[in-house]
């Protein structure tokens, strides 16, 4: 049974995306997700004006 909110989150997203996560892989998936979320937070906490366009906006 998942004991931690991040483990619960991994279970829920895996189910929603139909992604297999075997128990043996879970520690590595979790460790990688922790790194991704830590780095994403570094970006998230940087204030940007509401008008900022994402880089993926293209010219038609």
């Amino acid at each position, binding site marked *: 049974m998942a004991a931690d909110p991040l483990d619960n*989150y991994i279970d829920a997203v*895996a189910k929603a995306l139909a*992604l297999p996560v075997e128990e043996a*892989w879970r520690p590595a998936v979790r460790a*990688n997700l922790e790194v991704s979320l830590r780095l*994403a937070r570094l*970006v998230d906490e940087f204030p940007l004006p509401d008008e900022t366009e994402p880089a993926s906006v293209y010219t038609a």
Partner: protein
Amino acid sequence: MTVNSDGLSAQQIAQAVAGGKLSALDATEAALARIAKYDSVLNSFTDITANRARAKARAADAAIAAGQKVGPLAGVPFAVKNLFDVKGLATRAGSKINRDLALSPRDATLIERMEAAGAVLVGALNMGEYAYDFTGENVHDGPSRNPHDPTRMTGGSSGGSGSAVAGALVPIALGSDTNGSIRVPSSFCGVFGLKPTYGRLSRARSFPFVASLDHLGPLARNVGDLALAYDAMQGPDADDAACTTRPVEPVAPLLAQGIDGLRVAVAGGYFQKNVFPEAVEAVARIAKALNATKTVEIPEAARARAAAYVITTTEGASLHLDRLRQRPNDFDPAVRDRLIAGAMVPAPLVDRAQKFRRWYRERVLELFQSVDVIIAPATPCIAPKLGQVTFTLDGVELPVRANIGIHTQPISFIGLPVVAVPVPLEPMPIGVQIIAAPWREDIALRVAHALERMGAVAAPAPRGL
């Protein structure tokens, strides 16, 4: 025929072939012989296209005998990272899964352009699985090995490209660079590598990784060869949505212009942290050679690296989602676990990374109003040992994989052109990034050429063979 092509540059081979002093077939056979002799050590090739190469070379020789004009790469052997489509091969992209793909019906655009210039494809090269790698190791094919010390990494993910060029098996190889995968093996293997501006060279018919970050480019043992290959591959291509419509802007004729008047600065702050003494020494040598006394701060570089990481892991996960569902056990477990985690990053965080990217691009482009060139380490260290998991820096133990690309990621994140130049330190070479404004590959290559002429940079002869 009076010329032995061993050790010749691409330019020298092409001149000898065009001038009738060397046949394209002899140049091709010499490359195939070097591959046969040394690749049991280097493991840089996964496919050798000998029959195709001989047929191409014979056709070139026949054209020359008939008095026809030949291209600037006539008879020059080259090889490509195995994520380029090669007609008749499955594009494995370093994976086990892709070996089940249908055989490619057509070559990648860049192979077609190299061959149109007369070059001869001799094979496909080892790489990290699906290009999600900085080490050059591969669980399916074994690691490519460093020609200066086969117990060390080549760097990834274009590890076979770095190894084959540094080992002088071919004068030119093509690689891909999403976060540093041309610049890192160039640094570890001691060769020159060009990561052009995002969108400059067509990626058509190459296996993707991160669409908004993927670049293709050449590696070579001298700047002239790098420019020759780059010029041959430029040009619009409707088959790559990101490929520029700018006209071809040849750089080879500009190399000898020198660097008078160019404003060169050293990247400070982030780029001077988390570096081993060899990287500090290499940057200092280049700064001294270029008389660069100014330092510029690339703003928010750590955050840029973080955003590149987030975009990479999520776009990569999107690309591989079906394969993760259907064949998870056929991945390198380390790649699989990174990609599964990438699929779980919430979408708003990815969008914020793309918004940050726009902001960062504008700030960095402002720097180029006062400088023309920025120099920075290509890697924080020389090539680690194969299998090495951690290194210790300033008393802190750090993971190798996660830290190899820390200096390349903030640069490719906004698609700036970079030439990685090799500083021939002992016991191993290490690279420095020569970074220019978008579409100014000419400036980065002119600086690299000037450094080469000064003797500050050079691809050392392979010491491990």
